[in-house]
């Protein structure tokens, strides 16, 4: 099968790529753009480690073909912090609340949380847990992740900054 030329807008940067049509977005992000913050924990859409935002919506990039993202906006974990020396409030909350252990699920968790808070700025604890239903973690037991997301929601609404 011939390669397809696609244009991806990733974290605001435009890339023109020739890719095999069967390649996943996760694979192209990691291997071609070297954005390795997107993790592959199962490659089957079960674990959520590969979560990215596609036009603002959280998706499993291991189940999405790169060609499907043609001319669409992709946000990966590398694109979330507002500047090199500043963290996004969700990232900051993950650090401060001990929501990170091995860190392999973390990029996906953070982006799932971003999607959640974009759509529901003041979620209840149950809504946060439901919002993480597509993301597995084996280290933390989730509670500190849930706490961190709650704290980030509060901070974002208090400061009116970035959601």
């Amino acid at each position, binding site marked *: 099968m011939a390669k397809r030329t696609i244009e991806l807008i990733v974290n605001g940067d435009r890339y023109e790529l020739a890719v095999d049509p069967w390649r996943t977005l996760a694979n192209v992000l*990691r*291997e071609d753009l*070297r*954005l*390795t*913050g*997107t*993790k*592959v*924990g*199962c*490659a*089957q859409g*079960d*674990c959520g*480690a590969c979560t990215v935002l596609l036009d603002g919506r959280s998706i499993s990039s291991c189940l999405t073909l790169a060609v499907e993202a043609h001319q669409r906006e992709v946000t*990966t*974990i*590398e694109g*979330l*912090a507002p500047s090199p020396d500043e*963290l996004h409030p969700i*990232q900051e909350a*993950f*650090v*401060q609340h*001990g929501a*990170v*252990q*091995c*860190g*392999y*699920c*973390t*990029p996906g968790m*953070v982006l799932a949380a971003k999607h959640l808070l974009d759509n529901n700025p003041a979620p209840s604890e*149950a809504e*946060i*847990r*439901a919002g*993480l*239903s597509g*993301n*597995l*973690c*084996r*280290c*933390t*037991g*989730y*509670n*500190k*992740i*849930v706490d961190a997301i709650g704290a980030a929601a509060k901070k974002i609404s208090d400061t009116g900054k970035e959601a």
Partner: protein
Amino acid sequence: MKNPAIIGQSIPRLDAPSKVTGKAIYTDDMKLPGMLYGKLLRSPLAHARIKRIDVSKAKALPGVKDVIVGADTPGVKYGNWRLVPQSQDELPLAVDKVRFVGDEVAAVCALDPETAEKALGLIEVEYEELPAILSVEEATAEGAGLIHQESKGNVSLVRKIDYGDLDQMFAKADYVREDTFRVHPVQHAYMEPCSSLAQTEEGNRVTLWTSTQTPYIVQCLLASTLGLPENNVRVMKVQIGGGFGGKMELRPWEFCAAFMSLRTGRPVKFTLTRHDELAYGRRRHPMTIYSKVGFKKDGMLLAKDFQVMLDGGAYNAMGPTATFLCGTFGNMLYNYPAYRYFGRHVYTNKPPASAMRGFGAPQAAFAAETQMNMAAEELGIDPIDIRLMNAMQTGDVIPDVATISSCGFKESLEEVRRISGWDQKRKNKTPGKGLGIGCFSFISGGVFNWFNTKYNFSAAEVKVFEDGTAQLAVMACDIGQGPDTVLRQILAAELGIPIHKIRLISMDTACTPKADLGTWGSRVTLMNGNAIIEAAGKIKAMLRPVMFSELDLNQIHDLAFEDERVFVRANPKKGMDFAECVYKALRGREGEPLTARGYYTPRNKGLVSPAFSFGAQVAEVAVDQDTGQIQVEKMYTAHDCGVAINKMSVEGQLEGAIQMGLGYALMEDLVMDDQGRTLNTTFLDYKMPAAEDMPPGESVEIETYEPEGPFGAKEAGEGLAIPTAPAISHAVFEAVGYRCMETPITPEKVLRALGKIK
């Protein structure tokens, strides 16, 4: 004893910013110039002789750079128990025989992963199938075929413990019960699938980045299997995406990456899939546990006879240690005047079981704690009271094992009783609801030198500089549990400098001091922490003469290192900045930096561990009597981990342990067919708890001071994975009367017990 202020602080982990921004580099994130992609061909059969392998078609495929089979390798067997060479039963690639579905038979490396995968399909292997032995009962039956010729009866290792007069004690007992428990296999399910990348230089030196818990063990065993000096292998720092015991041995893909890199002169990387991990990966030992226990009628324990068969799968892996620890934890927590353990590690044609969070203890505790609850019920004694009556305490001696140097077990029992509302809730029972208890004890690192290292168990190198900063070098590795932060907290406390002024070099076998046995058995904080304290003490000794001569101090003065200052403890005004002190100490040393090394090896600490943690957990559950669904409503925990160095990290360990314990009790199970194939090889089918499945929790830390630990610290986190399953099981019994003797506790088993289904 008053600890420095930084001890016990919930300092956010220093590696967290790189992890939340995606900058942290794990092995599979790495790509080197000219790198080749490796893939493994695995046996589709559980037990077979290899009659013929033909790799010619695979080799001829354009893009394939190397194909290897067992006969191409040096054929050196390996295994973690170097102390017992006959226990080393594994080869990187099978020779003559395959012993489980997934046994590695050949490896390919190619320009891209797709070509490597295609090449695997072109390798022709002709097998002569042998009968597959899939249970410990079959394996140990008379006339059973042998999985390894050397192991008669398919038993690879026997562990016996025997003290007290068992017969006499049972004769004295008013109440004796015998039970048999069966516990099932589960998997670590670390989120990062294993990955290894090898690069060679100067002909025969190998650098390996690999998802491991034990860089030193991998270095040594990789060198021996390659036929190279140890010094030619360097294992280097990467981020590790969880381990839980599943990444603590040399693995075939580590060997194949290094071996094919040597052959091709190019970097070679192997990354497993989740299917590989679930279908063929290490797992927690299934066990058959017979336990006979005797009590006086007032509840005093007299004797226990504990006989265990561990289903080890096809190779020893860390099974020998699990066999030892299962015996040790069969009689922990309570004082048994007489105890006998007979543990057998049995080969079967299944993927090897190995270490997994608790290392033989979760299985032992499931049986022991459940049986304790059964006895309490029949003797008419409250389950907490019967435990308090028999509980170990500080100073107790376990024959041939250890003297308990700190123990907050009784306090844990009292606290968990209080916070769970135990007495009240048991008095006013609600149908379908119940409270259950499970307890644990665990090691803080092992004493037994099964790896037969000639070096210290842990080592640290500290350097201090005239700008007031320090560098810490340790071989210990952070697999997610947090030592990259905690070890720096310990050094910061010793030197009295802020944690961010300490640069860390860890997990690099070439430039950190030898050695560190790795991250397992909850050993890092205690063992490495002690090594750091010794090294820091030597640095302080180098700084002391400066202080005494500069300030003309009296011999009776003692120095303190706090807040980036060195000063006279009795007169804090008398002192100088830490940086200045280092600067002055550097003079006259002919340019020799201030460097010191510290070491720790447990000596005269019995056979098992220098320190033990303790704790108790209560589960509150509701069982739906129509569906059999079990809802864990709340978990209450009280545990003694000595002094917590980083409270937030300890909480994180506890909460993570509950996730794993909950999964073990209720949801997770590796289901196998009658051909030895694992059937649930995706996270869709291998169910582990998600965020919505997690119950709320309440916990209390019982602070004791462990004299053998750094700043009083001991094990925290691994042991906590032990009590959850027995606590939930007991709660289910209290709720609906179903006593689980064969894990996991499923709705189907509940309904069958309630007579709702056949």
